[in-house]
């Protein structure tokens, strides 16, 4: 028998990380003398939130591109579906007229959060509970809608191979983006305008009666949702189905000859990947506090693809690490490249708006040319093994 993998250190580490996030975002309210960086409004937390959202989508993309070998670039389209589903379902009824004022109100008056408020009461704990429950269900529905659309377009699209699949999925995402901005659909999608007013991450902060925040949870929430979703994806990858997906990536003909139904397994992977992209889209809407089709461009898919490639195609932990690095660089560390900088009266050449993207392009080229396996290749971080190695190292040192 193969020895059982030891999951305990991994679970403990992740739990510890989640607790650390809560502490991190609340630490300045306890110790106000801490530097500005610990303020919940600082770029640190913007980066953490965005990276948490992106890492879920990147991992879902990796499930399809890295583990099943289906090269698809429809991720932004499925995120869009998720974001709109989440937004439309959770905008409170009383805000709908205001949000959809250009179209004379919304055609879809139902709001999940209001529905639960009707059951559990609108104020205090009941209201909070209804909001949380409503958001969870809306996120699941966001994923379901994205998954359903993936199922529908999967029939024609998954018969295509490699490059053709890329073009078809990319086209699908672009069509969706145009479709959701169509004025005729205004009463549902608010046309080219954004939908807002729905619960965002900061709605999860716990406040006291006077509206003062007692406990910040706005960074913890995306971390929690992403952790749960990635855990499910990892469980899937390590199951019998995950092995079947990998076998399809390695050799389709052999998989088919070993009795693995190609089409249904590809479809399964496509639908599951899109489901989590949809959930990621819902989270993204919460992160930016609005939903508009304009945001879900193909550039977003390329960003995600870049993350997957940097992290290593076929590595979940690689994708997560790459997401945090990429988002931190693009939102924070490399921001200075976009504005003119002076070092003691000397103007640094080249730095101007857009230069950051030039640097990124060079980084992509370097990675593709020299580190085509990315940070992790197709390996995973195995915390139990790392601990073991350290232990044996210590034992050796003792001797």
């Amino acid at each position: 028998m193969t020895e059982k993998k030891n999951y305990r250190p991994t679970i403990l580490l992740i739990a510890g990380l989640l607790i650390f996030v809560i502490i991190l975002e609340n630490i300045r309210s306890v110790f106000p003398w801490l530097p500005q960086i610990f303020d919940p409004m600082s770029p640190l937390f913007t980066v953490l939130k965005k990276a948490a959202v992106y890492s879920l989508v990147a991992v879902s993309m990796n499930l399809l591109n890295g583990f099943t070998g289906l090269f698809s670039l429809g991720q932004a389209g499925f995120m869009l579906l998720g974001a709109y589903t989440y937004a439309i379902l959770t905008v409170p009824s009383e805000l709908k007229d205001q949000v959809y004022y250009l179209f004379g109100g919304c055609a879809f008056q139902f709001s999940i959060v209001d529905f639960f408020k009707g059951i559990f009461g609108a104020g205090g704990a009941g209201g909070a509970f209804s909001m949380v429950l409503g958001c969870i269900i809306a996120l699941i529905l966001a994923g379901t809608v994205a998954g359903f659309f993936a199922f529908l377009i999967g029939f024609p699209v998954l018969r295509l191979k490699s490059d053709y699949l890329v073009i078809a999925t990319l086209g699908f995402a672009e069509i969706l983006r145009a479709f959701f901005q169509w004025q005729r659909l205004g009463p549902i999608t608010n046309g080219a305008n954004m939908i807002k007013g729905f619960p965002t991450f900061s709605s999860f902060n716990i406040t006291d009666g006077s509206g003062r925040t007692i406990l910040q949870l706005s960074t913890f929430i995306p971390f929690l949702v992403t952790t749960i979703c990635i855990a499910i994806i990892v469980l899937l990858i390590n199951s019998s189905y995950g092995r079947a997906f990998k076998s399809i990536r390695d050799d389709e003909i052999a998989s088919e000859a070993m009795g693995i139904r190609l089409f249904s397994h590809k479809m399964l992977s496509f639908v599951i990947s899109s489901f989590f992209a949809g959930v990621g889209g819902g989270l993204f809407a919460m992160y930016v506090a609005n939903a508009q089709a304009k945001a879900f461009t193909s550039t977003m898919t390329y960003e995600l693809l870049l993350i997957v490639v940097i992290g290593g195609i076929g590595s979940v932990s690689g994708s997560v690490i790459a997401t945090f690095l990429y988002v931190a660089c693009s939102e924070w560390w490399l921001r200075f490249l976009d504005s003119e900088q002076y070092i003691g009266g000397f103007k640094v050449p080249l730095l101007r708006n857009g230069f950051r993207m030039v640097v990124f392009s060079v980084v992509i080229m370097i990675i593709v040319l020299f580190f085509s396996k990315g940070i992790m290749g197709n390996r995973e971080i195995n915390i139990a093994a790392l601990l073991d190695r350290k232990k044996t190292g210590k034992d050796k040192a003792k001797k």
Partner: protein
Amino acid sequence: MTEQAPVNALHIENVTMQFGGVVSVNNLTLDVPEHSIIALIGPNGAGKTTAFNCITGVYQPTNGLIEFMGKPMVRNYPKGKDLKNYLGEEKDKYRSLPVLSPTPDEITKLGIARTFQNIRLWKSMTVFENVLTAKHMRADQNVFSATFRGNLSEEKRMREETMELLNEQGLQEYKDELATSLPYGLQRRLEIARALATDPKLLLLDEPAAGMNPQETLQLAEFVRTIRDKYKLTVFLIEHHMDLVMNISDYIYVIDFGSEIAQGLPKDIQTNQKVIEAYLGVADEQ
């Protein structure tokens, strides 16, 4: 079950496979009785692998019938453009019957497993995972029970059976190595182990001894016999290696340019003039 008249595990009738104007397999008819080892031989390009691909569903034959365990499995007749260009025989024999064209995975599910001429192991997986993945088809779980570990006993059973299979094939010491890092002979053996993991009734071996030395070939012959007896298999193989073919087969079919040129017991084939000509060429042609 009482022993009755020997059933044919595989029965191939009038199978023709035509690609454009080229007839790769021409009106092939053969029987593979249950629990036997039957060989299909022929010079390079004779259409042996094409015949295999017709049986395993990779190609749909242009015409003909393939029965597995007495039940029709594949059936087709030439239609449309194929009919206009059809060069084979018996083009109307199956016209009145419905077309059957199962996909390779459906055929594997019926109980036909195969190996490949140019080894097709899953490259990124270990030896253990290669065999374990082949068990996926017969696993009794859906994607939810698999993901949320609802059926742990099933997974455990699969792992135990895989380990058993590896122990038998003498591959247990390599179980955590990448499949592609094994020596060639062992990769062939692993491919057979992987095929066995799908619980087949009929095993198709496509040139199992290709690239093996005489010593390894001898071992392979012994090995094929052992697994045949152990798993109550029927074995149908393509081979170039005459030592192996003459050693293990109960009956031999010889094809050349897609058509059958001889069939018989190994000792008859060895002296068959047509076979010698097909392999060595006719004297006055040179």
